[in-house]
Every structure is written in C-alpha cells, then in structure tokens.
C-alpha cells in the first residue's frame, strides 16, 4: 500500500462522494420503497420518477436558517450533528469494497468500526442534551441505553466470525471467504460452521438495525411519542447532518454485515468477483432494512432491552461456545 498523495486524494474524494450520494439517494429509495409497500407512488414530480428530489431536499435544507434557541448550549448544539457524521464516514475508510479498492487495510479494522459506532451514540446524547428540550433529553437517554444494550450481542457475534477467519483485518476476513457462496461464512460447509453462522448472521443483522436507531427499534427518534426525539430543536443542516449520519450508519452496517457474513466482494459462483457484487449485497441488505421499517410497529423501551439482554445475548454466547467447540473438534 504505497502512500502516494494521489491515492490518498482519490480515496478521500471517493469516500466523501460515496457517502454523500448514498445518503441522498437512500432517502429516495426509502421514500419510493415505502410508497410502493403502501400502494402509492412516492415522489414523481421533481425529475423523472422523482430522481432529483434528494437534490431538491438537500438545497432546501442548506438554504434554511439554522435556528439556535437561546436556552441552548451553543457549542455542543452545533457540534453534535457534525459528530454524528464523523464516525459514519471514517469507518468507510477500512471497508474493503473489493480486492484492490480499499482506502486503508488496517490490522484491527473491525475494532476501529466498533469504536466509532459508540462514538455515534455520544453524538446523539450531546445533540439531545444540548438542545435543552425535554423530549430530546428523554430520547437521548433512550438512545444511549438502546445502543449500549445492542453493542454486546453485536460484538459477540463478530467474535465468532473473527474466530473462524482468524484475523481482525476485514480484508483477511473477506479474502478468507472467497470462492463461491459455499465459502461464505454464512454457508460455510467446512467444519460445520453453517450450523451456527446463520444464527449469528441474524443476531448481527438485528443489532445493526438497532444500532442505527431504525424501526422497529427507533426509540430515539420516535415520531409519534417524542415529536422528533433528539432532532426536535434542529433546523436546516443540523437536521440534515443527523439524517445523513443515520443513513451513512446504515450503509456502514450493511457493508459490515456483507463483509463478515456474505463474503465481501465475492461472486456467488466464484467467477467474476468484484466491487459490483459488494454493492449489490449492500443494497439488498439496505432494502431489507427499509422493508422492515415499513412493516413493523415500534417496540417499547423495556421490551427492546429485554429482547437484547434476555434473548440476543444468551443466544450469542451459546453461539460463541458452539463455534469454539466446532473449531476445537474439527
């Protein structure tokens, strides 16, 4: 990995473009997907089939004035949305899009992503606390307890993958799964991993949905209860940054799930593996997240925590033990 300036610039612009475009057009996908599920047609006016709608929204958000209420802690109020964006984008650095497209292949890249994920939670807490609004404070308290509760099963299931592929470097994990879908961690035939892997895939997927505060776990930004949760006091780009942060976190969650379980950039039949397969897998996972959001009602905070502490964590631990046993046996 030579560190020429052009390469750094290329990846810097590439990641920023990938993040921004994704954030904008995921909003479009969500609105179109939700509309289709609800038998209506979604945005159709701005541009062909509403394709320019995200652009229009972006311009509108940027042109609006960011109101900073008087009773608000100015610095933290402005800092929180930016802080919500940073972890999302920086974790894109270590995601292996394909064999040779990866900004920086670091040894402990999996650990970096989890560290940044908890940073995102702090941004929500700061945003809720700084806006001094009662609804925002309740929502940030909920967000913290929810993210904490879902960090643990996520780590446990990630450890099972690390045990199998032997390294924390996402690049090695992805390389380890090359060569056809029977090589992917989820269906891995060799020494019987497929028994436990699909369980950890499901748990990991549930936790990634919960981690990004997406329905049915959107306790933090519960529209019908807490008005708009921690985003209540935010106006134009403050709200815009929080939304972009949320969508980028979804993209990162999907990338992580694809790399850990679905074999990264590997083609299902081991022939033309490349970045397109990786993009395809991400968008299938993202569509599932959207699909889940428009199907289920929201859980209640204690049921949510019970689900994590009483069901996900025991299952994740049992899964961990079985995987360890399987490795030992074979």
């Amino acid at each position: 990995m030579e560190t020429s300036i052009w390469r750094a610039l290329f990846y810097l612009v590439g990641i920023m473009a990938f993040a921004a475009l994704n954030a904008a057009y995921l909003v479009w996908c969500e609105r179109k997907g939700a509309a289709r599920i609800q038998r209506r047609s979604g945005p159709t006016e701005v541009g062909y089939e509403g394709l320019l709608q995200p652009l229009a929204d972006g311009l509108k958000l940027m042109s609006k004035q960011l109101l900073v209420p008087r009773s608000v802690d100015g610095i933290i109020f402005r800092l929180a949305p930016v802080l919500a964006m940073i972890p999302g984008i920086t974790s894109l650095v270590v995601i292996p899009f394909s064999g040779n497209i990866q900004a920086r292949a670091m040894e402990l890249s999996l650990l970096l992503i989890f560290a940044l994920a908890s940073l995102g939670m702090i941004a929500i807490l700061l945003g809720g606390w700084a806006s001094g609004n009662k609804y925002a404070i309740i929502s940030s308290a909920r967000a913290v307890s929810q993210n904490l509760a879902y960090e643990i099963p996520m780590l446990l299931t990630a450890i099972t993958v690390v045990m199998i592929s032997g390294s924390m470097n996402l690049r090695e994990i992805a390389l380890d799964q090359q060569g056809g879908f029977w090589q992917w961690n989820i269906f891995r035939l060799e020494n019987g991993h497929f028994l436990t892997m699909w369980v950890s895939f499901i748990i990991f997927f549930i936790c990634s949905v919960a981690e990004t505060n997406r329905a049915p776990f959107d306790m933090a930004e519960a529209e019908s209860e807490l008005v708009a949760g921690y985003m209540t006091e935010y106006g134009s780009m403050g709200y815009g940054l929080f939304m972009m942060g949320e969508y980028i976190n979804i993209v990162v969650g999907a990338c992580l799930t694809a790399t850990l379980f679905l074999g990264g950039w590997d083609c299902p039949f081991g022939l033309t593996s490349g970045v397109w397969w990786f993009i395809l897998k991400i968008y299938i996972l993202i569509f599932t997240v959207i699909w889940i959001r428009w199907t289920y009602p929201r859980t209640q905070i204690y049921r949510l925590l019970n689900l994590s502490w009483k069901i996900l964590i025991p299952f994740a631990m049992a899964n961990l033990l079985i995987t360890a046993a399987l490795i030992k046996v074979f």
Partner: protein
Amino acid sequence: MNSYWSDIINGGKSLVVGLGITAREFFKPVVTEQYPWETPTMLPRFRGHIELIGNEETGAPNCVVCGMCQRACPSNCISLDGQKAEGGKGKVLTRYILDFTKCSLCGSCVESCNFNALRFSREYNLASFDKNDFVMDLMKRLEDQNRCKH
C-alpha cells in the same frame, strides 16, 4: 420457561408472515389517484356550494324572491333581493349573494325552496388567497353558465 420459547418461535413466525404480506403488497399496482393529472369525477349528489337554476329557454333564474332559503339557513349566508316585475305579477331576482365562508352545506336552503330554483353545484377545487372570493354572486355565475351554453 416455555412461554420464553413459544414467544420466540411464534414471534419469529408472525414477523416473517408480516414481511411476506408487505412484500406481496410491494408488487401490487398503485391504488392512489395522481391528482393533478387524473382529476376525480364528482358524483351526482355531491354537495358543492349552491347555485341558481335557470329555466332552459330564457335562462332567467326560477327564483321568485320568496326568501324561504334566507330564513332556513342556520348561519344566514344567503342575502337576496328583487324588485317588482314590469308585468306587475311576482318579483324578479336582482341580487343573490352567497357567503360561502359561513355555509355548512346542510342543504336546508335547497330543501326549503319549493320553486326548484336552487341546487348544489359540483365545484370542489375552491382554493383562493382572498376570503372575499368566497362571497359569490350567484346571478353572475348563472349568466356565465348561460353564455357558455349558447
């Protein structure tokens, strides 16, 4: 303990069934009507604001200025007056103002008119920036209708 397992199994099943239903709905055609391009057709008995009925040949309103509708209206939105007809029998309508901002479309006026002079129009897109646009002169409206009929 078994409620723990039954919760997981039944719960999981109900979640998957739910996803199945929304997936099936996802591929079904769109139900909504794309309003500006497909305008809805109003049903015969739709209650728009009231309008005068002119008889076919002369196009003059059937109204004989008896004022029954003015009295029947609960929110007195109708104000009308007329003058003696030249031939000396009966009255001719000169002014018929409907203040649609106060009208609650109850139909008492149409019901109380025994001379078949009032009916509900089928206007439904009545948006405007100015309140006075809703103080309607039904005489002028009848003349416009007659003019565009010939």
